C-alpha cells in the first residue's frame, strides 16, 4: 500500500522510488484511483452477489407462483418490489430475471468475442485475398441492420436460451472482426514483430504470444462495454416479444408485461428498469475506468 502511495504522489522529502511493477498491477493501481470505476465495480459485485445467491434470498417459486388475490400490489414489507399482474413477487422475478439476463449477456459477449477475434486475426494477419474475402463478406453481412437480423434469426429458430445466444453472437461478432483486424494491422508494422519473424517464429506463435497480448487491452475494454450493450439489446428483444419464453423471468420480459399496467402499477416498470440501468451503468463505469487505466497516452 505504502509503495503505491509513494509511486502515485512522490513527495519532496522522500526520493522517488522506481519499482519494477507488473503491468496488471500497474493497471489496477490506476483503475483504483478512478472513483467512478470503483463505484461501478462495487455496484456490479453487489448485483452479481444478489443474483448468484438469489436462491438464498428468496425462493424461485415466489417468482413463478401466481396469486391473483394480490395482483398488482405496490411495494410492501412482504413484497419489496410489489407484485405483477399474476400476483407473482416482483423482487424474486427481478433477481431471477437478472440471472437469465446477465448470463445471456456474458455468454453472448464471450462467444462473439471468440468468433469475431478469430476471424479478425485471420483477416489481419494473412491479409491479401483472405482479408478481402472476409471483409467483403462482413460488409454484406453488416448491411442488414443488427436488430432486423437478430429478429429474423430468433423468429426462424424459435426463442430459447441457445438460439438467443446464437442471434446475439451473430449481431455482435462483427465489431470484434474489425477491432482485432485493425489492431493486428497496426501492430504488425512494429519492429518487434519483424524481429520475431526474423527469429523464425511461426504465424500462430506471432499471433498468440506477440500480437494478442498487446491487442488484449483494447479487446478487454470493448468486451466489458459490450456486456452492457447486450443487456440493453436483449431486453429490447424481449420487449418485442422475441426474448426468453415465459414463465422464466427475464428483465426485458418483465418490462414488456409492465407496459399494459403502466397506469395502475408503475412500480412494475420502475424496478426492472432500475435493475437494467444500474447494471449497465456499473459495467460502463468499469469499462470506462479500464480504458483510462490502460490508455498508454495517459501513462505518467
Amino acid at each position: 500500500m505504502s509503495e503505491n502511495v509513494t509511486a502515485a504522489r512522490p513527495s519532496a522529502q522522500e526520493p522517488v522510488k522506481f519499482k519494477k511493477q507488473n503491468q496488471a498491477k500497474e493497471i489496477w493501481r490506476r483503475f483504483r484511483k478512478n472513483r467512478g470505476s470503483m463505484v461501478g465495480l462495487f455496484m456490479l459485485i453487489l448485483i452479481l452477489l444478489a443474483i448468484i445467491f438469489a436462491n438464498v434470498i428468496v425462493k424461485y417459486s415466489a417468482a413463478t407462483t401466481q396469486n391473483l388475490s394480490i395482483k398488482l400490489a405496490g411495494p410492501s414489507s412482504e413484497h419489496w418490489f410489489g407484485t405483477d399482474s399474476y400476483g407473482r413477487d416482483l423482487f424474486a422475478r427481478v433477481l431471477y430475471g437478472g440471472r437469465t439476463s446477465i448470463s445471456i449477456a456474458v455468454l453472448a459477449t464471450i462467444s462473439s468475442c471468440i468468433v469475431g477475434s478469430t476471424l479478425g486475426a485471420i483477416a489481419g494477419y494473412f491479409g491479401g485475398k483472405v482479408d478481402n474475402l472476409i471483409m467483403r463478406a462482413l460488409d454484406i453481412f453488416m448491411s442488414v441492420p443488427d436488430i432486423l437480423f437478430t429478429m429474423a434469426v430468433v423468429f426462424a429458430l424459435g426463442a430459447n436460451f441457445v438460439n438467443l445466444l446464437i442471434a446475439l453472437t451473430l449481431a455482435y461478432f462483427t465489431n470484434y472482426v474489425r477491432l482485432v483486424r485493425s489492431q493486428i494491422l497496426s501492430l504488425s508494422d512494429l519492429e518487434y514483430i519483424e524481429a520475431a519473424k526474423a527469429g523464425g517464429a511461426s504465424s500462430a506463435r506471432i499471433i498468440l504470444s506477440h500480437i494478442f497480448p498487446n491487442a488484449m487491452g483494447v479487446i478487454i475494454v470493448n468486451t466489458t462495454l459490450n456486456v452492457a450493450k447486450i443487456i440493453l439489446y436483449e431486453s429490447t428483444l424481449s420487449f418485442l416479444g422475441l426474448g426468453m419464453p415465459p414463465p422464466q423471468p427475464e428483465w426485458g420480459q418483465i418490462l414488456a408485461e409492465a407496459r399494459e399496467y403502466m397506469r395502475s402499477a408503475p412500480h412494475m416498470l420502475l424496478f426492472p428498469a432500475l435493475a437494467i440501468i444500474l447494471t449497465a451503468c456499473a459495467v460502463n463505469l468499469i469499462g470506462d475506468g479500464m480504458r483510462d487505466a490502460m490508455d498508454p497516452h495517459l501513462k505518467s
Partner: protein
Amino acid sequence: MYRYIIKRILFLIPTILGVIFIILLVLNFTPGNPGRSILGVSAPQEAVDQLNQELGYNDPLMVKYVHYLKNLVVNHSFGTSYFTRQPVANEVLPRFWVTLKLSIIGIIISTLVGVPLGMLTAVKQYTAWDYIPSVLAFLLAAIPAFVLGMVLLFVFSLKLNILPSYGLNTWQCYIMPSLCMAIPITAFNIRFTKSSMLESIREDYIDTARAKGAKESTVIWKHALKNALLPVITNIGLNMGGLIMGAVVAERLFSVAGIGALIVDRIAYKDEPVIIAGTIVISITFTIIMLIVDIIYAFIDPRIRAKYTRIKG
C-alpha cells in the same frame, strides 16, 4: 476520386444480392406452415398442401432465391402476403415512408444536439459544462430505448396528458416517437464527439499551433475541430443501426404504422414475404445511406482524396 465512388456504387450490387440471400437463408430455417396459417385449423390437408405448393414454400433455398430475384426484377413485385393476401409492396412501401420520416427527424435531432454538446464537454473539460452533459449522456446510454419511451409515455400522456400516446395524426404525435429514437443516439453522439475532440486536442499539431502563438479560439475551432469532426461524420452513418432499432421500438410502443412495427407484428403470423421484404427494403436503404456518408467523408478528408488522386495520376 471518381474511381472510388464508382467502385463503391458497384459494390452495392453484390451487397444487395447478398443481403437478400442472407435473409432468405435465415428465414429458411423457420418451422411452420403458411398454408395452414392462412386457411385455418379446420381446412383439409390437401388444400393446405396445394397452397404451400402454390406459394413456393416447399422449394429448396436456391430455387426460392432465384424466383425471388426474378420476381423482384421482372415484375417489380415482393410477392403476396401470406396473411392479408395483398401484394407485399402495397403494405411495405407506405409504411416505409413513415419510418423514413421518423428516422430523418431522429437523425437531425441527435446530430444537432449531440455533436455541439460533445464539443462543449471537450472544450470546457473539468467544468460544469463538461460534467452535466457527460453525466447525462452516461446515464441515457444505459437506458434501453423502450424504457425511455415508456417513461415518456407515462409522464406526457398518462400523467400530464399533453401529448397523444399513439398514431401520427398531428404534429404533436411526432414528438415522443422521434425523441424515443433520438435520445439514445444523442447520448452516444455526445460521448463519441467528446472523445474524438479530446483526442484531437492532444495531437502534436495542436501544440504546434499554440507554439506559433495562435489564439486559443483559433486553435480550438480551426485546428482541433476540423480534425475531430471527421470521425463524427462516419459516426452519423454508424448511427443508422441504432436508429432502426429505435424505430422498431418506437413504432411498436406508440402504435405508429411504420415498417418496423409491421415486421414485428407479422412475425406472429409467420408472414415471411412481408418480413423478408421489410428487412430487404430497410437494409438497402441502410446500405445506400452508409455509401453516401462514406462518399461525403472521402470528399471532406484530404487524406483519402489524395490517396485516390495519386492512384489516378
